[in-house]
């Protein structure tokens, strides 16, 4: 076969891919590239006739901005509490428990958890706003138990929104782990049990290592999803009070659209992307190590 024919054939093979590539370039790479460009300008939403190139000024500004650092800290708290500790562990626990449960219990639990997941973010936000507010369900329950009630959205806003995210997002982890646990061949667990491994030891030495890859994948997807949560927090607290639940996406929105500093907001978005990739790197590392 000569070079020309080979070239033609490889071109022919690439052809079916081209629509996908074009779409990706147009709607994914394009906007991201444009974003990266804007992050180095002082573009504003209003109040300015022409934007100019400002180099690294936006990034320098971010690291000198107390509110930005506050948002980074809150984003980390929100991600660790709601994604790593909350959704991930709770999802795994639910999946493990459901394996042993009877069919009706399994269907019911699965149904409830998945309903929370299917609800649009804003609707879930309003539900949990109603749950946590002063006249809300949580305080009504606490009153019944003669425990002190308080306005949770005001006193512990970051924990309230973290809980909301756990409530909404656990279903995803549960589904991932249910699938992973079902993949474990029964003989392996049986063999381990014959060897005398029971309960926690069986779990720690057999089950967890077998689903290690799923844990990594799940952690990565959960974290990336949680980092970008906006609607839920916006509806429940708008980042308040006093910026005490203002995570990076809310901070970014405020800078770009309320203070109309699109350039600065975009730079913050890029930094959020960096935070996301740092988390991903850690998880990829975890995935690679052999047991």
């Amino acid at each position, binding site marked *: 076969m000569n*070079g020309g024919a*080979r*070239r033609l054939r*490889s*071109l022919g093979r*690439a052809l079916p891919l*081209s629509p996908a*590539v*074009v779409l990706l*370039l*147009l709607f994914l790479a394009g906007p991201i590239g444009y974003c990266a460009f804007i992050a180095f300008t002082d573009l*504003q*939403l*209003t*109040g*300015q*006739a022409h934007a100019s190139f400002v180099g690294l000024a936006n990034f320098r500004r971010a690291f000198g901005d107390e509110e930005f650092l506050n948002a980074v800290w809150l984003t980390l708290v929100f991600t660790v509490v709601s994604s790593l500790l909350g959704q991930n562990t709770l999802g795994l626990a639910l999946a493990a428990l459901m394996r042993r449960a009877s069919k009706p219990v399994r269907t019911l639990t699965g149904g409830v958890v998945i309903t929370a997941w299917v609800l649009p973010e804003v609707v879930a936000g309003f539900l949990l706003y109603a749950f946590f507010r*002063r006249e809300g369900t949580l305080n009504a329950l606490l009153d019944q138990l003669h425990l002190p009630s308080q*306005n949770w*959205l*005001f006193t512990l806003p970051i924990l309230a929104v973290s809980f909301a995210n756990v409530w909404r997002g656990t279903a995803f982890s549960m589904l991932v782990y249910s699938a992973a646990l079902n993949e474990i061949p029964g003989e392996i667990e049986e063999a381990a049990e014959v060897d005398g491994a029971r309960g926690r030891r069986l779990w720690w030495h057999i089950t967890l290592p077998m689903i290690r890859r799923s844990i990594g994948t799940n952690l990565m997807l959960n974290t990336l999803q949680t980092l970008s949560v906006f609607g839920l927090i916006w509806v429940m607290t*708008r980042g*308040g*009070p*006093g910026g005490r639940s203002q995570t990076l996406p809310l901070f970014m929105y405020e800078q770009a*659209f*309320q*203070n*109309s500093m699109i350039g600065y907001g975009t730079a913050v978005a890029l930094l959020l992307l960096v935070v996301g990739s740092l988390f991903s790197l850690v998880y990829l590392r975890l995935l690679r190590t052999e047991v």
Partner: protein
Amino acid sequence: MPVRPTAARPRLTALLALAVAAGALTACGGSGSDPDTVKVSFKQSTDNSVHVMDAYLADVKRQFEKKYPGKKVDLVPIKAPDSEYYTKLQQMLRSPKTAPDLVYEDTFLINSDITSGYLKPLDGYLAKWPDWRKFIPTAKTAARAEDGRTYGVPDGTDTRGLWYDKALFAKAGLPAEWHPKTWEDVLDAARTVKEKVPGVTPLNVYTGKPAGEAATMQSFEMLLYGTGDGRADPLYDTASKKWIAGSQGFKDALTFVETVYREKLGPDVATALDPNIQTIVRGDLLPKGKLAIDLDGSWLPQDWQAGAGHAWPQWSTRLGLAAMPTQRGQAPGRVSMSGGWTWAIPAKAHNPDLAFDFITTLQSRANARKWYIANSGIAVREDVAADPAYVKAQPGIAFFTDLVASTHYRPAYPAYPRVSTAIQEAMEGVTTGDLSVAKAASGYDDALKDATGNQVVRR
């Protein structure tokens, strides 16, 4: 391997060609605008039971379509709180694909949008429109930019003052005809209510970022413009074209806000910082007799008219009105702020001529009168202001029209929105108790420098 690069090139060009084609196709798709249709964007109330604007525009649309046969009006409501409405609008104005033919602009942002080149100067149209001469001179400047050209037709203005609940005042032993002379008088009345009528909120003062511009204008500036000698602008120094930092008036106004929330004279802090606080005050606290004094705008009764959702015709006997006093009662003794909205034509509008025809229909004498009465607006047309039907339409109109004499306009320059956010942050700090007045004020000074590119003067 010499094959690779040459093989890649035709593939790349093919891809590029496709990309360009796709780009061109999508760009064409959106811009198909009908030359006989005028697209009108306006702000729809976030309160589902309030339809004042919708009803008024639907009525004018019918008149317009009858007057100009073959032409159509496409009403595009944007249902959002104020701050999100501006954002949405600015995004629409950026591109010819999304720019409507007519927009409803707050005077608060109009200079900013003019600087961005989003709006079209209307002088050519206004010169040929006889009714323009009927507009009150100060109102004509509402949308006049620094370049001397006019970019919007105002559809009314507003003023602000103190609304008080006469029944709660009677219970507290306060006078039915209340005329506070100083800030201390206002606070004392609130303290009396707190002591004598437990369970009600003595005084509402909007605060913090969730309330947005309402916190800045209805509260903070109503206080700030009552400090000092009452003549110089306490926010912006027009002579040097610089913003004022470190003023005593600023700290005094913050102290007032701090006092309200520290002494628990206001709504509980969590409610005060609820993003829906304005709806809570108008729809719940005032009509249900749960709030004694409210520092608020002239437009409140629009929510209480028959058919407006929270119909409350008794408001005029139940509520009293008092002018907001200056800090120590110094001349001129009272203070008010004014703003208002204008109809403006985007620079990227497809049918600007038709849009202007729609403005003249909206602001015909009969329609203007109808609108002021429906939305509790303050007239900017001299002929309507003198019209007995307007003056008598609603209790309170005479009171608020009278305040126009001692009113102030905001320095609505491009930096203003960020200055306003900085004010709200300072207010929020003292409201939650996170910041002392001194700390909040110095935080404002820093934010001000940043927002204005260091165009700041200390006074």
